[in-house]
């Protein structure tokens, strides 16, 4: 009568029943209430080989390793964010410590829209819980950890993409509803990574209405071949559940069966809950399906009340579009070194400008990023950021695995940057795990 999980699986379940963005916001207290009911009623936590771990509270240093908060990081942090990120950290550590083979961080609030620089709330996110976890793991288990993040949330994981834009050791693949039809409006195939990590970012925009079949096609024909080539030590799934056919803020047609099958094929070491706002009709079933699939258990009976096989279909055109997209992206990934040479040539530095809208704060951030082209490491980065031109910040990054040339380039930039031009200058010395700041005036 007692079920046994073929794969020892950890779960960090933290529904944060006392936290909401505001009372009727999709990201509100009872988001995981019905999920908890389903998990309890199924007896999932009684299954031998499924182990529940309490979250930890992430340290501010864990967050500072990933984010530059402006005016100050502390302005943006709350207990809820530190616990959510701490939940992800706990899941990752238990896997790397060998206590479990896989782990699911079923936590909220989510984080995949949070970018390196944080001026406020965007896309319901403040800190990037996957990135905070990954960098914590690299700090405590070895800096050479090769990681792949597969983001299956319906929205483009633009925050995670930004955090790892210049990191050649972190593969980021986002599968999402086409940005022309959904927030945040990005995530197109030409977003392919920074100059020293070209091809380590892959974006798969899917047409609205995509079904299980389409999603699984992407897994089989793009994600798995790329992962096989990339050979990550750790596969993270940003497991958003808003591709579900009942989700109130998206337009996809994925079912609980689709999510379970996705998880079974992808075999992530760590899954982290991201979005998913159909709190009654999807989340209880999708989360049950993901957890059972991670544990290697049967999921055939995990179906929504109104599920029928073959309920959702797509046009022949839409099907061919997805197939073709996978072919092009796989080809592009395989040819990434050649593409890099033609895109960046032998320039010493590459400069990009961008604007970032914070829907939660109603502000627009401007960024100008300069990356030193480097074959030996991720390259030193100088990132200028401002909301008001009179209050600019400069962030200088010495990457985790930094070559001597890039280090002296970054250190020179840090020395040079005066408080006459910038209100804040931050040096992020990743090999030393140190953040240093120069601040103009009395306030932070």
């Amino acid at each position, binding site marked *: 009568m007692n079920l046994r999980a073929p794969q020892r699986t950890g779960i960090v379940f933290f529904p944060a029943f006392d936290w909401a963005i505001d*009372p*009727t916001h999709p990201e509100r207290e009872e988001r995981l209430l019905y999920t908890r*009911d389903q998990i309890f*009623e199924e007896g999932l936590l*009684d299954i031998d080989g499924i182990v529940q*771990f309490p979250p930890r509270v992430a340290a501010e240093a864990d967050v500072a390793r990933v984010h530059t908060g402006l005016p100050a990081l502390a302005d943006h942090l709350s207990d809820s964010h530190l616990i959510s990120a701490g939940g992800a950290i706990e899941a990752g550590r238990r896997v790397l410590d060998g206590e479990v083979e896989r782990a699911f961080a079923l936590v909220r609030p989510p984080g995949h829209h949070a970018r390196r620089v944080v001026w406020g709330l965007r896309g319901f996110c403040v800190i990037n819980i996957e990135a905070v976890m990954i960098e914590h793991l690299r700090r405590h288990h070895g800096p050479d950890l090769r990681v792949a993040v597969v983001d299956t949330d319906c929205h483009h994981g633009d925050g995670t993409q930004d955090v790892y834009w210049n990191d050649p050791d972190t593969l980021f693949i986002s599968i999402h509803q086409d940005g022309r039809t959904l927030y945040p409006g990005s995530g197109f195939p030409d977003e392919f990574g920074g100059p020293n990590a070209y091809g380590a970012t892959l974006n798969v925009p899917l047409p609205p209405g995509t079904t299980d079949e389409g999603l699984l096609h992407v897994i089989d024909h793009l994600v798995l071949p790329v992962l096989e080539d990339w050979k990550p030590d750790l596969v993270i799934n940003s497991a958003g559940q808003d591709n579900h056919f009942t989700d109130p803020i998206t337009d996809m047609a994925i079912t609980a069966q689709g999510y379970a099958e996705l998880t079974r094929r992808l075999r992530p070491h760590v899954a982290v809950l991201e979005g998913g706002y159909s709190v009654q009709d999807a989340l209880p079933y999708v989360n049950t399906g993901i957890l059972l699939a991670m544990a290697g258990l049967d999921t055939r009976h995990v179906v929504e*009340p109104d599920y029928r096989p073959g309920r959702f279909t797509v046009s022949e055109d839409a099907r061919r579009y997805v197939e073709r997209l996978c072919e092009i992206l796989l080809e592009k990934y395989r040819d990434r070194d050649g593409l890099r040479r033609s895109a960046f040539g032998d320039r010493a530095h590459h400069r990009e400008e961008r604007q970032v809208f914070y829907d939660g704060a109603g502000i627009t951030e401007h960024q100008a990023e300069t990356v030193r082209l480097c074959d030996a490491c991720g390259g030193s980065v100088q990132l200028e950021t401002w909301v008001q031109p009179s209050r600019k910040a400069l962030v200088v990054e010495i990457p985790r695995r930094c070559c001597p040339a890039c280090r002296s380039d970054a250190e020179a930039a840090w020395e040079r940057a005066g408080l006459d031009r910038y209100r804040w200058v931050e040096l992020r010395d990743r090999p030393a795990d140190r953040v240093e700041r120069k601040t103009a005036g009395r306030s932070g």
Partner: protein
Amino acid sequence: MNGIYLGIDVGGTHTDGVAVENGRILRKAKVPTQDDLVECTLDALETLLDGLNPRSVRRVVLSTTLVTNAIVQGRLEPTGTLLTAGPGIDPAVFAPDDRCRVVGGAVDHRGREIVPVDEGAATEHLDRLAGDGVRTVAVVGKFSTRNPTHELRLAELAGDRFDYVAQGHRVAGTLNFPRRVATAYLAAGAWRSHREFVAAMTAALRRFSVLAPLYVLRADGGTQMAAALANPAETALSGPAASVMGVDALGAVDGDTLSLDIGGTTTDISVFTGGAALLEPRGATVGSYRTQLRALYTRSTGAGGDSCVRLEDGRVRLGPDRCGPPAAFGGTHPTPTDALVVLGRILGDRHRAADALRPVARGLDLPVEAAARAVLRELGRTVAEAARKFLDEINAQPVYTIHELLQGHRVRPLRAVAVGGPARAAAPYLEDALDLPVRVPEHFDVANAVGAALARVNVEVHLVADTARGYLSIPQVDAYERIDRRFSLEDARQRIDRAVLDLARARGALDPDDRVERVDEESFNVIQGFSTAGAIHRLRAQIRPGILARIA
């Protein structure tokens, strides 16, 4: 509390009894347990009533191994099971035996019917069970505690062809379908033997001219009038519960306290915090069955006074088996009790004890006394290690709000209490191993019976009010009611308080001091689309496990 309170605990080796009046122990009894549990209970009763007026007995509380043994030894009555499930894990996995059938029908997490129950399939299975001579049935639906109509309908279909139908929502009121299945199955399987035992005992009491009602002790350390017991499986594991309540009644609890009951082959560990014994978070495990039975949180370690002593790679090891009684009391194998006899800490045949320990001493290359001390240190070490593991488990219990996580109370006992036969003699060794002061209260040898005599009625009740659905459920009192949109948290509080007192009264509460304690309260808005459609209030209230009076 006026009158005489009798408590009898039928354990694996001994049957212990006490008669208590006004906080004083009037009589103690200790007789060997026999195969016929009624017989040894009557032996104890006879000793207790010697010279007492049977008419002044106010209540008789029994704690027995009857149901535990039936479950563990696989002697349950053949029982049919019908399950309805819906989305999730394949329900066939939870079939307790091959008399189980899954029939169509499903209810969702909010208690909404998704698929009507397949009456044809149900009837067909019930017919076959009846034809096979099966007399008891369990009917269990997923989420039946949110909406029991499927179970009610299945019970109706079973009709009077069966002597007893266990309905999941009545015997297991919280969310956990697999445990609900196991609990209902055990309730049905233990129903008849328990009923017969209660009838025999009630008749026997009358023969002794005791007119007071017969109570049974439950796994949660609460008592209940035997006649009002809906689920006989609730008497499983009442033995460990009796000792825990005894520790409380003997006045030994002070702040966070570790309670140790040193028995023949096991030591049961439990924990008091905030003045009450902790309860199992999800329910008791009985034999191989994980149930929803509310039970005191106890962990058993395989080391007690009669555990077999062995040498393993030059180190002393205990148990887990018992190889007969200690050598000092006629057995053949060395035990911790023999070590205590050798050291003169308890009386017994010192010669035989020393002879039995000699091979161990030789293996350790030590004199017999030193070997005896090594055996007792091993007993202490085993118990202390189990206690530490148990405390880690308790402190790792999940919480689901930021407030709880940041305020998290950790249980850190500053003292321990030991009861059971070898408690006093072994206490110094426990003290060393635990690094805590160990108190051994007076009457430590009958703590279990004292606990049975003085345990209070306790109850736990769960309320879910869903104003969007217009529905309220309190499975423990079988309340399923319509409510309107304005039903508030305050209304829910009043309703659950009433349910707690109703249930306590139905179980036979004698104590006017019973205090309803609301332990959990959650309120959520139900949002449909982007507007509020109602609220869900969830409350849990209880009367805590406790005792009527302390022994003076």
